[in-house]
């Protein structure tokens, strides 16, 4: 008995560090990341990017994409919290991995960084299509831009692009502006315009097009201009985040270290914007920014503290909700001025913007409308780059009870007066009639 309990204690002691580092809703620290490479030399050629991840506390597990011992799950538990696939030419993933298991991985709420390159295989294209991103069907096509290429392009075919059309979002790309253009060399992809879960983070300039650089164009290219996305992100409805890049070289040390000068522009930068771009993007995709959590909705009548079971029409009520944002280490109060609450029954009767006390509490007060029924307090917050908040709480609203109306209606005072005057008149008349001479 003693030996059993001691071994259990020993085992739990070993498991404790693992438990503190694993993913949980209160502590969304993605720590264990599986990195799939098609060539182990990528470990050194992309070392700056991997080191930034390691310095933030991530446990990177480098494996070859075709390793037969690959597994994402064991006995129903996921072994990793994030996945990076830097294996653009892999036709088949090893072990128990395939595009369906990767789709399930994202469905479970875990994050993915996927990068294609000039020789993107069908497997990689398939995973990208699952996430809503369509790579150019021509497998030999690359993004070519004759006006926005980098002046340091050695090949001379204008495939090394200096892109600066970044999405305007502080939460995805960080508060600091990325001054230098981002160097890119790879394939183009496009997004379905009706899909509202994907977003272009780095777009090509209007003069870009996707074609084979070594052969003459026989017909106009299909993907052109700003419809070409170079790097896109997708935030799924379960708030899993996916980054899809058309270039593996975007993450490489060579492009991170190189200076950049856009052809035709006088500005020359010593360092390209690549390092800042990939670092900030990786912070976003692994939930270090823009991950919101909401406490429960609290509502009560003005002057009370308990939540009533039912409201009456034209009651004054106060509503509040707490929203926190994960800063990578702890929950910080979320500050924004566009969180709204709806008092909803088939359509919002009341829509109010909540005011914040800057400590994470969002509150407002309003009058219950003059309609009775079963209402819902709804907070539907969908801001670009932030997790979607979808909260609701049901509450019934009743009409006046028969003794809650006003007792005497002021407009009817003349009628009250007339009735009593008539009664008094009748009384006086009967006296006079009986006792007159």
């Amino acid at each position: 008995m003693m030996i059993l309990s001691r071994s259990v204690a020993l085992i739990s002691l070993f498991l404790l560090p693992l438990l503190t580092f694993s993913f949980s809703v209160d502590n969304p620290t993605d720590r264990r990341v599986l990195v799939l490479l098609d060539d182990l030399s990528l470990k050194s050629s992309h070392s700056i990017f991997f080191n930034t991840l390691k310095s933030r506390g991530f446990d990177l597990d480098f494996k070859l994409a075709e390793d037969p011992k690959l597994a994402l799950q064991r006995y129903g538990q996921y072994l990793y919290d994030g996945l990076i696939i830097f294996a653009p030419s892999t036709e088949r993933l090893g072990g128990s991995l395939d595009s369906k298991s990767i789709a399930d991985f994202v469905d479970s709420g875990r994050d993915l960084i996927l990068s294609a390159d000039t020789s993107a295989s069908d497997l990689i294209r398939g995973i990208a299509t699952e996430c809503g991103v369509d790579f150019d069907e021509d497998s030999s096509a690359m993004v070519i831009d004759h006006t926005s290429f980098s002046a340091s392009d050695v090949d001379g075919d204008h495939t090394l692009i200096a892109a600066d059309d970044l999405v305007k979002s502080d939460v995805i790309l960080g508060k600091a502006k990325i001054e230098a253009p981002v160097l890119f060399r790879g394939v183009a992809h496009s997004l379905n315009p009706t899909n509202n879960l994907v977003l272009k983070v780095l777009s090509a300039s209007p003069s870009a097009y996707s074609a084979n650089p070594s052969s003459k164009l026989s017909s106009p290219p299909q993907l052109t201009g700003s419809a070409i996305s170079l790097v896109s992100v997708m935030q799924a409805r379960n708030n899993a985040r996916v980054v899809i890049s058309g270039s593996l070289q975007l993450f490489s040390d060579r492009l991170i270290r190189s200076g950049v000068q856009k052809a035709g522009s006088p500005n020359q930068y010593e360092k390209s914007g690549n390092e800042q771009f990939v670092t900030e993007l990786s912070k976003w995709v692994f939930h270090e920014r823009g991950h919101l959590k909401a406490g429960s909705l609290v509502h009560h009548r003005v002057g009370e503290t308990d939540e009533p079971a039912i409201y009456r029409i034209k009651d004054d009520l106060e509503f509040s909700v707490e929203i926190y944002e994960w800063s990578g280490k702890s929950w910080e109060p979320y500050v924004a001025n566009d969180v709204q609450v709806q008092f909803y029954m088939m359509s919002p009767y009341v829509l109010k913007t909540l005011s914040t006390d800057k400590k994470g509490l969002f509150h407002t007060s309003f009058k219950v409308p003059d309609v009775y029924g079963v209402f819902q307090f709804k907070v539907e917050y969908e801001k670009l780059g932030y997790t979607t908040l979808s909260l609701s709480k049901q509450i019934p609203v009743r009409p006046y009870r028969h003794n809650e109306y006003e007792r005497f209606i002021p407009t009817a005072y003349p009628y009250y007066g007339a009735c009593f005057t008539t009664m008094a008149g009748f009384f006086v008349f009967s006296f006079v009639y009986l006792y007159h001479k």
Partner: protein
Amino acid sequence: MVKSTTKDAQDLFRSLRSAYVATPTNLKLIDMYVCFAVFTALIQVAYMALVGSFPFNSFLSGVLSCIGTAVLAVCLRIQVNKENKEFKDLAPERAFADFVLCNIVLHLIIINFLG
């Protein structure tokens, strides 16, 4: 022609007035009461025309109390008038007792309906 019609109207009016002066006092009292009740009713109708009929039950209650009591007073007058051959055998006290009872019932209903 005009002069003669004016003179006729004046003669008619004078004869009506002299006939009315001859009526007994109790009947004149009842007439005054009826005028007072109808006047009150007309004031209420004018007020309703001004502000609208919002608490309609109160309006009805007020107007019907006046009209009801006027109607009961007219019945009393008919029954008490000695020139009326139909009610020759009815004691005037009985008529007055009916009048009082009906008025009490009327005002009970009115207060109930007033809201």
